[in-house]
Structures are given as C-alpha cells and as structure tokens.
C-alpha cells in the first residue's frame, strides 16, 4: 500500500505543480449545480457575470437531478479532498437547504460572514436566510425557494358554496361535501412515501400541534403527547377517508399528477407545482387556488416547510474572491429575476411584487405571504440522520402498523442512539 500511496501523492504533486504554473491565466471557477427544469437559465447568468467581470471565467457542470446522488457526489469529493491541500474540483456549489449546516460543520464551506455587507441577507425570506446560517456564521447565499402550500380546486369549492378551509375540520367537511356529488374524487393528497417528502409532511403536522422534531436542547420529539398528536394527524386523514390510502406511497409527482389531472380536491405540494397547473395543456388551468396549510389547533400557526437551494463555496477554492463574486451575483436581484422569469422561485422578497414578473406569474404575491410564515426544517448538521431515522416510524404510524405512541417511542430510541454518537 505504501508505494502506491507514494506514487499517488507524487502524481497529485505533479498535477498541483502544473496547475500552479498557470496562475497567470484568468482564474476559472467551476460551478457545480443541479440540472434545472425546462429552459436552463444558468448559461445566461454565467454570460452576464463574465461580461461584468472580464478577469474571471466560469465553467459550469451539471449534476444529475436526484438529491441523494448530488449529496453523495459532494460528500465524496469534499471529504476526499480534505487535508491534501488540493481542491475538490469545483469552487461554487448549489446546495439543498438541508445540507448547509452539515457541510459547514464538516469544514467544507468557506465562511462568508466577513465577505457580506451587514444586513445583506435581509432582502431574502427569513426562512431562506435562516437556512444559510449556522453557529452564528453565514455559510451560503440563498438562491431559490420553495415552501409547502395547500392547493385547492377553487371551482369545486365555489360550486358547493364552501369557503377555503383554514382548519383540519373545515377541510374534512369540504371533502365530505364535495364527495357527496363527486364520489370518485380524491380528497386531500399529500406525500406519505417513506422518503424526504414524508419528513416535510410530518414536520408540518408537528408544527401544527405546536411541537417539533428536535427541541432547542437537542432532544428528539421533546413533547411526547403533541408529537403523538402530529403522527396521529397523518394517520387520521387516511383513516377518516379524507385522504386516499395511496398517499402512503405517494411522492410529489404522483400527488401533483393526481391533482393536476383533476382527480383530487386538495393537494399539499411546493410552490413550483402552480406553474404546471397553469400551463396551457393543464386540465385544471384557472381552477386552482393557493392557501396556507390548514391548522390543527386553535391559535397555533401551521407553517409550510421550506425547500430550495443555496450557493456555497468550497473552503479549498483557490480563487475565493472570484468565487464569492460569482455566488453573490447569482444571488443578486438581477440574477434572481432571470430565474423567476422561468420556473424557479426566488428568495428575494421584492421580486414577488415585481410588475414585470407578475405579468407572467400572477400568483407570486400570494406565495409571498405564505412564504413569509414558512419554517425551515431543523437547521442542524445531523439533519439527514434525523430525517431518515424518523421516516420509517412516520410511515409505520400513517399506515397503521404502529400506534402513534409506539412510533414516537421507536423514533426517539433510534435517533437517541444516532445522536449520542455525536457527543
């Protein structure tokens, strides 16, 4: 093993030398990002940035669209590059909201705090800015945004003289009333498959019962009784027939299609679905409304979970100034306006009232108010442990294999062991 390692080290050194010899050339920064839906705005943004910064070149490399695969790619490359004085092969990366604290904790991200103007993040939604901070420092720049929201069939509610439901009970009544005349219609569809989407739905159920997955002191499911009520809420929707049984295997796309084909009355999904419902060939075009998620208890808000992505910079970058300039440009109002002209939602609040954008996407102001109340998923480096640990338990509770009490106890046990390892 030794000689092989030595040979590898020599190769790396050689590669390092050849790269160092070419520092006279303009710095090239590499931007790793997820492939964008539809008309890819990234090339346009890069061209605009290079026109403003003639000294800097940007190379873009798209990753596959699966979040798990992207995460794995970043982790392998960032961890593998650690301690060898050589970068991971990219400078700026598009990060899912839930990865920022993890990557910051691992020491893979450049601390951006000193590079930003005071209050620079204030123009973004608070939930988006919160996802950029960890341990009192800023590690990334908010880039695009999503939040859980309730979609409803405005035409069907109107024809049955029903108001837009604000509470679980009102939603249940609306489903029962409309299904009297449309027995084949599904009621409320959401994401119950055992994956990240279920964690989002569970978090929203927990928040609606005024509790959370991770307490401020780091305890898992700190309030047992309320946590059980949250788990029971998901089960209750299926048990009472408000939601079809198939939500237990449903992801975003499956539920979006069911609602988009006109087969469901209510849908919990992300902001992005609206553009698809309003597309030319959509079966529900002009018949869809957006509302905050229903409340489970009087006086307790029911915020949607946030999604979206941020821009982080590798700590091993050899061109930190250029990389920061590029990330700041992408997060700027100018660049986010380009994104918002397509199918992406910006993190900058002002754009939700921008007249030019409103002409194309009239529902933006409605999203703005919902997004303002949205809440990030637990901001912790151990997020993926929490999420993948609680998913089987949430799934077991919602299909009725375990009682909510048992699911909560098992989740605490599983996660307790995982989190103890961090101490």
């Amino acid at each position: 093993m030794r000689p092989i390692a030595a040979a590898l080290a020599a190769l790396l050194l050689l590669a390092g030398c050849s790269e160092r010899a070419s520092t006279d050339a303009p710095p090239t920064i590499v931007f790793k990002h997820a492939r964008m839906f539809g008309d890819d705005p990234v090339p346009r943004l890069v061209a605009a940035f290079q026109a403003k910064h003639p000294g800097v070149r940007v190379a873009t490399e798209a990753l596959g669209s699966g979040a798990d695969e992207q995460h794995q790619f970043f982790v392998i490359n960032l961890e593998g590059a650690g301690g060898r004085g050589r970068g991971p092969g990219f400078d700026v990366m598009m990060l899912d909201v839930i990865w920022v604290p993890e990557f910051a904790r691992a020491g893979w991200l450049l601390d951006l705090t000193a590079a930003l103007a005071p209050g620079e993040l204030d123009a973004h939604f608070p939930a988006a800015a919160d996802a950029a901070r960890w341990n009192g420092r800023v590690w990334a720049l908010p880039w695009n945004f999503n939040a859980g929201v309730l979609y409803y069939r405005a035409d069907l509610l109107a024809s049955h003289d029903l108001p837009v439901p604000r509470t679980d009970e009102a939603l249940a009544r609306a489903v029962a009333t409309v299904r009297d005349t449309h027995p084949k219609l599904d009621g409320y569809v959401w994401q119950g498959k055992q994956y990240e989407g279920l964690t989002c739905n569970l978090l929203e159920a927990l928040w609606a019962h005024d509790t959370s997955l991770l307490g401020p002191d780091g305890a898992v499911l700190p309030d047992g009784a309320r946590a059980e009520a949250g788990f029971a809420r998901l089960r209750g929707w299926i048990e009472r027939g408000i939601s079809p049984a198939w939500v237990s295997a449903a992801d975003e796309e499956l539920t979006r299609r069911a609602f988009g084909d006109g087969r469901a009355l209510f849908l919990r999904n992300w902001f992005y679905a609206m553009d698809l419902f309003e597309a030319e060939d959509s079966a529900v075009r002009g018949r869809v409304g957006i509302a905050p998620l229903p409340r489970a208890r009087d006086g307790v808000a029911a915020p949607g979970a946030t999604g979206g992505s941020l821009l982080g910079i590798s700590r091993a970058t050899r061109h930190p100034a250029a990389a920061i300039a590029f990330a700041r440009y992408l997060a700027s109002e100018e660049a986010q306006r380009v994104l918002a002209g397509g199918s992406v939602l910006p993190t900058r609040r002002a754009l939700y009232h921008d007249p030019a954008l409103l002409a194309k996407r009239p529902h933006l102001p409605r999203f703005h108010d919902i997004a303002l109340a949205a809440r990030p998923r637990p901001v912790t480096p151990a997020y993926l442990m929490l999420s993948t640990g609680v998913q089987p338990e949430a799934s077991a509770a919602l299909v009725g294999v375990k009682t909510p009490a048992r699911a909560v106890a098992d989740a605490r046990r599983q996660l307790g062991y995982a989190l103890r390892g961090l101490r």
Partner: protein
Amino acid sequence: MPSSGRHRLTRRERAERRAAIAFVTPAVVTLAALTAAPALWVFWLSLRERLPVFGIDRFVGGAHYAFFATDPRFWSALRVTGTFTLVSVAIELVLGVAVALALRGQRIGRRTALALLLLAWALPGVVTARVFEWLYQPVAGLVNVVLGAQLNWLGDPSLALPALIAADVWRTMPFVALFCYARLLTIPPAVYEAASVDGAGAVATLRFVTLPMLAPVLLVTMLFRTLDALRAFDIMYVLTGGGPAGMTETLTVYAYRSLFQTLRLGFGSALGVVVFALVMLVAAAYLGVLRRQDRAA
C-alpha cells in the same frame, strides 16, 4: 491426490513447488488486496464511531452490534431480507425450470422467446424498477386497470413486499431459465429414449430424469440468485424507499442509508459486516452441498 506426507521431495519437485508459489502469488496478493483487506477494514470500522462530518473517530467496540440486538429496525430489515430471498428465489427456480422446459418443447419462435427473456434480464435494475413504478401506480397503473381493482400496491404494508418480489421475479427468472435451458440442450436424447422404453410417463421422466440432471446447474444458479437476493437494493430503493413502515427495507438499504446518506461510517459498516457474514454463511452452506454432490457423483 497422492499423499505427500513423509515422502522426501526431489530437487525437481521442490523447483516445481517454488514455481507454483511464484505463479500463484500475484493472484493471492491481488485477491487479498482487493477483497480481504477491505473486508478487514470494514470490520475494523464497524468497531468504531466514525462520523467525518463531526470530526468524530473513536473506538466503541461492539456497541453498534449491541444496539442491533434491541433495534426493531434492524430485526425488521433482517426479516425482510430473509423473506425476500426465500420467496423470490423459490418462485424464480420453479418458474425458471418451467420456462426452460417450455422453451425446449417450443417449435417456432424460440429465438424470439430467448431474446425477450434476455431483454428482461439485461435491463438495468433501476429501469426495471421505474417500469414497475408505472405498472403499480395506484390510480392509473396497468396492474390495477387489468385487475379492475384499486390496490395500493406500494403503500400497503402487506402488499409492498409481494409487489417487489413480483418485480424481482420478472427480472431474474430469465437468468434461471436460460441456465436450465442450456443444460437441457446437453441432455442426450438417448436418455429420454431409454426412459420411454422403460415405460416412464411425463411425470416420471421429469421426476427421475430431467430434474436430477438439472440439479447441479440448479444448485449453482440458486447460489448466485440467493447471494444476489441477500444483497437486494435497487428495486426497493427506487420503488418504495424501504417503506411503508420499513416493510421493504432490506439490510443493504439500511446500510446504504447509514453509510452514504447520513455518513455514519462505523454504524453503517457494522450493518455491512452483518450482510457480509450472512452471505458468507449461505455461500458456505451451498458449497458444502455442492462438494457432497461432487463426492457422490
């Protein structure tokens, strides 16, 4: 083999032995470096708590294994792995033999049938899984449309594992069928003529001629299939993510989630060691049977 016990080696024999060692060494060293060393490394990791994100790396001994003893998720994954392996391999063998026999008897379109069989087997696992995702789609999926039912294939805890087994059978039964078919072609017709002269009917021929002659091939295919099934990953990863309620989470899916998704390298390695031990046990059992058969033959 002649016993070389106390017999003194001649100079020539010694030279030959040296040459043999020289020839074997590269293979042994390569195998050791590529399989034994990583296996030992994983075992060593499984005795540690290693979390690169948190800069944690410490020895914890058998703590992970001790946790498994009381971890319902581990026992569930073990049960799922066992059920999936037993049921899917059993069905694949029965169907595979049946298809091989049918193929042999087929007069026309045999090449087309072979090509179709190969196609199912040659598709990447993820593609197969995606196809079945559409077939099992709860509202408009072909399976429900054909059955005229509204079954929640992938979301019902009692249906999800059978649905995955069906997908796995569809994908890997051809593997068994092709092996058996190849063996059937090499059985000399004289054997069957002799059987019919002795007055054996179709059932007796199958029971006393065909199956015994297939047995060695069947055993080897069964070994391959069992080892694959014990490590089943792609179908459940794509179709159900291990759900609902962890009812389709195999040990490898649990290990993947721990190792790659949450970077618990020690804990995930411990799961990997369990899978490895399981595979080795089963392989050793099969090899024992194969050896006994060889000796009997």
